[in-house]
């Protein structure tokens, strides 16, 4: 079945090597601005960067799950993710706000809060 949302060249280039479901979630958010799609995309991007991969989908984890202490995310990977969020969603994630991010919910909330007005509206 074809993806319901078109995948832009920017997405295709930025997400080389990413799972199709991750690309589809990003494409959906790009097309609709839907916050649920953004949540799925953020979680999928984080999940793709975890090593070793989590035993079950990240979407089944509670929002209070700690990114570093429980999921093993390191600081280099966090920078990779920040650049992805900025490139894909236009969200500017300043360092002073990033240091306060501890859990999955913190990250989701920061990305949502930092979306540019055009997308947020």
């Amino acid at each position, binding site marked *: 079945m074809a993806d319901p949302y078109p995948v832009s060249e920017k997405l295709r280039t930025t997400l*080389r*090597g*990413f799972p199709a479901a991750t690309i589809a979630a990003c494409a959906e958010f790009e097309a609709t601005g839907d916050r649920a799609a953004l949540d799925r995309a953020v979680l999928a991007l984080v999940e*793709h*960067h975890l*090593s*070793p991969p989590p035993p079950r989908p990240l979407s089944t984890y509670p929002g209070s799950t700690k990114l570093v202490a429980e999921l093993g995310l390191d600081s*280099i*990977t966090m*920078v*990779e993710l920040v*650049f992805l969020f900025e490139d894909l969603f236009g969200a500017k994630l300043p360092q002073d706000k990033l240091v306060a991010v501890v859990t999955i919910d913190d990250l989701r909330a920061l990305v949502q809060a930092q979306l540019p007005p055009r997308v947020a509206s």
Partner: protein
Amino acid sequence: MSAATAGPRPVISGLGFITSIGNDRTEVVASLRALRHGLAPFEYLPGCDLPVKVAGTVKGFDTRSDHFSEWRWPERYHFTRERLRSLPPHGLHACCAVEQMIADARLTPELLAAADTGLFTASAGSPFLQRRYLNLMYESQGERLAPLGVISTISGTLNFNLGAHYHIRGAVCGFNSACASAAHAIGYACDEVRLGRLQRVLIVGAEDLTADSVYSFHGLRALSRNPDPDTASRPFDAARDGFVGTGGAVALLVENEASALARGAPIYAEVRGWGQSADGYNVAISDPEGAGLARAMETAIRAAGVTPGEVDYVNAHATSTPAGDRSEALALRTVFGAAGARPAISSTKALTGHGLSMASVMETGFCALALSEGFIPGQAHLVTPAPECEGLHLPRSTESRAPRIVLKNSSGFGGSNVVLVLARHERSSDAARCA
């Protein structure tokens, strides 16, 4: 450069190859015996009609992309995203060569992480990936800096990646003397073993085969413009016109003989001694009379406790450039002519192309195979020996005789010369049977 007879004996007890003439020891031996080259038509800049048309290509891999997610490698190797993300293209090759070497040497994770295991590497880094990341930096006006851009591109990239992955704790060091880099790594590894400071040192050399790493040498007019893969690399031939580039990776283990024997590891050869010198002449051109390389050979032979007459084979540095080969030919005449010795001499770069900082670990690996398998690779592609080669024994075909003492010559930009002396070990034949 320590004495050959005192203290622990360094031996070569593991090998791994990702090269233009084969991706494992068996393929490499077959290519060396048959003088089968690995050169092929190659587009450094696709779509451009460049004057340089041939390279020593690595088969079974595809690392043309500047993003690791698009790389391809043989199924026998397994990589995670986390491991790939900090690698340059030649880092992928290096990981595969090291995996082979670890299996060959029967090294356990515990031995790799032991306090007396070291890692010495040689790589020019990845200007190919560096270009991508620096372009990103400039295009984004400093907003975008690849988090692992430095790790994956500077010349220490093999140290960082392999040292962390295998939890190396004894020593991690990169060597930077251009095309003599890996020979320096092997020489100093031998000293570490002889001094008893390390029991074993992983030696890894690797290079990208890209326009950024190799075609850049056309700026010096150092590359062959001969479009025929069968004749483009012809060291010591009167018609040679430059070197042919290659990439890939080679890994070998330099180890204290006692440690290798205790583990039942194969022993391909003993590294009997080594020597080095510097030309003090030019940034890129060898001393035309070969005086520096001759001194390095003399030092190495003396350090190994042998005589020129005992040397059976010299694996020459000769890259197929007019100036470099001439310099080496004169150096060889100086060292061996005066002693009335005529060892067999060949440059296996005729088969592989020139692997730059990887070259000397690749060719030391070849010498180890020649010693253990009992053959001397001939000088491929030699039709008309250059006049300066008069008196040198350059066999056109592989000789089926077992060498006992072998020299490996290496020279790099800036006039660095390194010569390794390898000797057949009493267990060398067993290593060949294990293949």
